[in-house]
């Protein structure tokens, strides 16, 4: 039992605890902040398992860029936390997760190779970069095209539709107060759908 073993279990506990806290929050802001802790722990784990370059990337991209993007987007919404439906929403999901986890654990420990103790090794950033652009340069280019496509799609999505086209008129009005009295067609619509349902029965 070396010091690396102790560090691994401590990091595992930190990652699991902060992820568990993150997924049970109602406010997405708190979840994102806990998730940053989990990603920092994951980066430290990568560093210990011999991937220092990926640990740096993980901190820069995940904990730095993506989580800040989450925070910015969360600030765009009006917060409306709703109660966690423990029985109707969380019970089936947790059951599903536990069954999945039991099967996965059984599969992992059925494999005799799972008992092999890992030997420490480090992929130096220079060696890793050379290997990457030596053998997988085409995949790197494809990934860059993927990022470009995502960028174009995001610009297209976030562009407001200009008025004047047909699409501008066909845009659906916000349904923030569907049950309010200001929408006279709503009652009629539900009557129609009720009639359709009865017709099916």
């Amino acid at each position, binding site marked *: 039992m070396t010091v690396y073993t102790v560090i691994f279990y401590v990091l595992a506990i930190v990652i*699991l605890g902060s992820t568990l806290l993150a997924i049970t929050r109602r406010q997405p802001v708190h979840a994102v902040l806990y998730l940053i802790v989990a990603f920092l722990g994951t980066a430290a784990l990568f560093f210990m398992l011999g*991937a220092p370059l990926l640990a740096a990337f*993980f901190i820069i991209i995940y904990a730095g860029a993506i989580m800040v*993007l989450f925070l910015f987007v969360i600030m*765009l919404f009006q917060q409306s936390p709703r109660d966690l439906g423990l029985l109707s929403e969380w019970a089936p999901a947790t059951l599903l997760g536990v069954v999945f986890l039991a099967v996965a654990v059984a599969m992992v420990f059925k494999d005799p190779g799972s008992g092999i103790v890992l030997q420490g090794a480090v*992929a130096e950033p220079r060696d890793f970069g050379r290997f990457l652009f030596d053998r997988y340069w085409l995949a790197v280019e494809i990934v860059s095209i*993927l990022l470009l496509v995502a960028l174009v799609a995001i610009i297209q999505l976030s562009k407001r539709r200009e008025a004047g086209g047909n699409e501008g008129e066909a*845009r659906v009005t916000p349904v923030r107060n569907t049950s309010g009295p200001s929408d006279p067609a709503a009652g009629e619509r539900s009557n129609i759908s009720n009639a359709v349902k009865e017709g099916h029965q």
Partner: protein
Amino acid sequence: MIVPLGHVFLLAGLLFAMGLVCLVAHRNLIMTLIGVEVMMNAAAIAFIGAALRWQMMEGQTFVLFILAVSAAEISLGLALVVSVYRRTGSIDPDRYDILKW
């Protein structure tokens, strides 16, 4: 020297199950995306452990691709959430009924 490979996979499996629960249980599109993110994290940990087990750098290469794909997926997903919020005024998927006649 460090730990058995099974323990790394156990950690990855626990994280993946947590992400799955978060994805299924929450009624909030932001929390759904966070669940996807946790699952990506678990997959990356499993790849790193496997790369160390077989002493091959392909596992780390794939973690790099996971990073890129996850960045693209999350940014696109958040743009979709913003777009759908602009159209319907809600990020609760239970309230999307504009296809209802």
